[in-house]
């Protein structure tokens, strides 16, 4: 990893433009801040520097000083300090900014270097672009366009290597395409802490491979596919499914745990093809877990709820809401709401409104798994903290719904409104479930939806917009990637209609209106609006909940013991 940046700034000169950067910044990053692109393959901002691709060669010079006195040597023609240019190019990734450093990225020598490196990289590279999944987002293609010579002088036979090696259950290797940048090796070693990859053989026979008896099967293996600058590592799930230039990118969030890794959802014509991480240096850097990338399959799962049902027969939204309102009236005072840590902040806010007008008790379902101390935390609900912020709950959810079970057994609860939670999986017995009338809002069929009197199909995270609050109390937003599944209604609309039918005064069920009310009524959400939340999220003041026993362990960018700093921008 790059050493943490120190605050002291140094001025470097890139192609005649000066910029002040923190000491220790390398030349590629300094030039990037000026909008100057230095092409590179092996350099990755979150991995150690190896400097083996040689693509980022630049000309470098330092201010001249007299060796003995260290006083500047002035150029008599200009009166400025002379620059001693090095006769040979240097690699930009391993050259750190030092005071007065001058670099040239557009000189004939640099151009020659890039063309030379490109020619060598393309010597044995197969003409696979038409069948290569990386085409369209391939650095080799991009740099060949920028710095390639356009034709090959190579008349010998190209090297032959294995084309379909399975490195693990999710990653396929094409050795011919590999340019030996070693990003995947460094990622496995440094980030995933699962050192399974290495190079064997020498020269043009060099091959990426797993160590004997090992496989690339950790839960972060697909990040190697993301960082592979060429098409050597491909995802077995996405392989040959769709060309990337057809796919629309939508910013979203990983909902598998409270880490809230930032993601991009790639879709075409309403079908999601893959999920990749989105860089957020405060949350997930440029990584995400493999398990979160499969969640898009829930959108077209076989068990999606597709019809509004009242008493087992198909119904309409207004009829179902009316039926629910009748149930609420009949069992007034004996209603319980089982909210969800998977709902967005806005939905939890409306759930809280609904519970308040019905004077219902509120419980949440806890989901606990093993945290991996990287990007999957022990709390598998993405938005428990959102429920705290909106006031839906005041303490962390119990492991099982024992309180609700006791209330049902005592006859205090006659109706349960479940927001996407399977009550049987959450600890109720079938007998207890049979004692109550259930109103179920959710995306998939389960024991609760089967037992529910009113079933209202709602949307998955990919079909709606909203916000989550992650383990750092960072408010992050996700956007709608694909249109709603036929038959399902937006959760906000359903919740608002139920609340209105129960007699509550709720804002119109669109994000802008809900956020106007949220900002006015929820302390800490201040003068914000959904549109103003930055893509990298907004840290909320966590001090009101600093005494709660959160279960997340220390992980990447997360310190459980230290309460988050009280910053609300």
């Amino acid at each position, binding site marked *: 990893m790059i050493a943490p940046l120190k605050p002291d700034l140094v001025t470097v000169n890139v192609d005649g433009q000066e910029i002040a950067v923190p000491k220790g910044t390398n030349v590629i990053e300094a030039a990037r801040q000026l909008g100057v692109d230095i092409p590179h393959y092996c350099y990755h901002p979150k991995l150690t520097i190896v400097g083996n691709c040689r693509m980022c060669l630049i000309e470098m010079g330092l201010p001249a000083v007299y060796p003995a006195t260290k006083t500047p040597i002035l150029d008599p023609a200009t009166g400025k300090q002379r620059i001693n240019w090095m006769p040979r190019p240097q690699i930009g990734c391993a050259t750190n900014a030092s005071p007065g450093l001058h670099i040239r990225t557009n000189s004939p020598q640099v151009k020659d270097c890039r063309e030379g490196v490109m020619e060598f990289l393309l010597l044995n590279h197969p*003409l696979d672009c038409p069948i290569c999944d990386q085409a369209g987002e391939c650095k080799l293609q991009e740099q060949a366009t920028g710095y390639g010579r356009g034709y090959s002088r190579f008349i010998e036979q190209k090297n032959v290597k294995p084309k379909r090696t399975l490195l693990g259950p999710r990653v396929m290797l094409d050795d011919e395409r590999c340019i030996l940048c070693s990003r995947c090796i460094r990622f496995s070693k440094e980030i995933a802490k699962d050192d399974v990859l290495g190079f064997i053989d020498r020269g043009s026979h060099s091959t990426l491979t797993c160590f004997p008896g090992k496989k690339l099967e950790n839960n972060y293996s697909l990040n190697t596919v993301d960082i592979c600058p060429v098409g050597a590592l491909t995802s077995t799930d996405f392989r040959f499914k769709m060309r990337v230039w057809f796919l629309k990118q939508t910013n979203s969030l990983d909902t598998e745990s409270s880490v809230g890794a930032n993601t991009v959802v790639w879709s075409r014509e309403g079908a999601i093809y893959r999920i990749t991480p989105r860089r957020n240096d405060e949350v997930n850097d440029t990584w995400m877990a493999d398990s979160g990338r499969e969640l898009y399959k829930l959108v077209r799962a076989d068990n999606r709820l597709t019809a509004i049902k009242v008493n087992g027969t198909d119904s309409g939204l207004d009829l179902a809401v009316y039926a629910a309102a009748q149930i609420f009236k009949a069992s007034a005072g004996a209603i319980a709401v089982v909210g969800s840590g998977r709902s967005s902040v806005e939905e939890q806010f409306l759930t809280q409104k609904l519970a308040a007008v019905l004077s219902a008790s509120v419980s949440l379902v806890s989901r606990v798994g093993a945290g991996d101390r990287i990007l999957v935390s022990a709390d598998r609900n993405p938005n428990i903290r959102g429920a705290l912020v909106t006031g839906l709950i005041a303490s962390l959810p119990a492991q099982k719904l024992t309180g609700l079970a006791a209330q049902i057994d005592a006859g205090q609860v006659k109706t349960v409104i479940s927001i996407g939670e399977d009550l049987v999986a959450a600890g109720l017995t079938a007998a207890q479930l049979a004692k109550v009338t259930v109103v179920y809002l959710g995306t998939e069929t389960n024991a609760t939806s089967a037992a529910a009197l009113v079933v209202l199909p709602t949307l998955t995270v990919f079909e709606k917009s909203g916000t989550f609050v992650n383990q750092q109390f960072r408010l992050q937003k996700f956007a709608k990637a694909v249109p709603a599944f036929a038959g399902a209604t937006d959760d906000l609309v359903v919740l608002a209609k139920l609340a209105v039918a129960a007699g509550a005064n709720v804002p119109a069920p669109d994000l802008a209106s809900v956020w106007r009310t949220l900002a006015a009524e929820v302390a800490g959400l201040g003068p914000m609006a959904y549109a103003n939340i930055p893509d990298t999220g907004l840290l909320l003041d966590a001090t009101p909940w600093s005494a709660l026993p959160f279960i997340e362990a220390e992980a990447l960018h997360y310190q459980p013991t230290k309460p988050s700093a009280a910053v609300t921008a």
Partner: protein
Amino acid sequence: MAVIPLVRPTLTLLERTYLPQIASGLKTTLKHIFSPNVTLEYPEQRPAIPPGYRGVPTLVMDPNGREKCVSCQLCEFVCPPKAIRITPGEIPADAPTGHVEKAPQAFDIDMLRCIYCGLCQEVCPEEAIFLQNQYSMSGYTRAEMVNHKDRLYELGGTLPDSHHKWDKKLAAEKSGPAH
């Protein structure tokens, strides 16, 4: 509105009989009766297609009978009226053309959309799609006007291949590393 008065031409006696006009018309008719035919008895007789003609887009096989399309979807991307729709698929490793790795599962061209521009042929990196001599498409339903993969290969047939890119690739694979 302005009125433009027209002066009718005064015809001579000969012109008023109309006989010279009839005679010249008959002359033209008689000339065409005895001159060679210029029309075709269309469905039975077909015109010769000039080289470079842009007819119905078709998929072609290489001389070994391998389907040349690798479903790179560049034609789908470039197609201005979005007439092409491809579902990519993988060739199993043990198939005779396993070294090509990728082939279309489905390849549909909607001939109601196609504008015969030839961009698909121009963009194809594998020389797999050609606008050939077929110019007549008809059908009773919209569905009939969509050419599926088998129909496209039937229309396209086999064309000579000057590159043999994938044959060379297979030969190199069999002979092992060259250096």
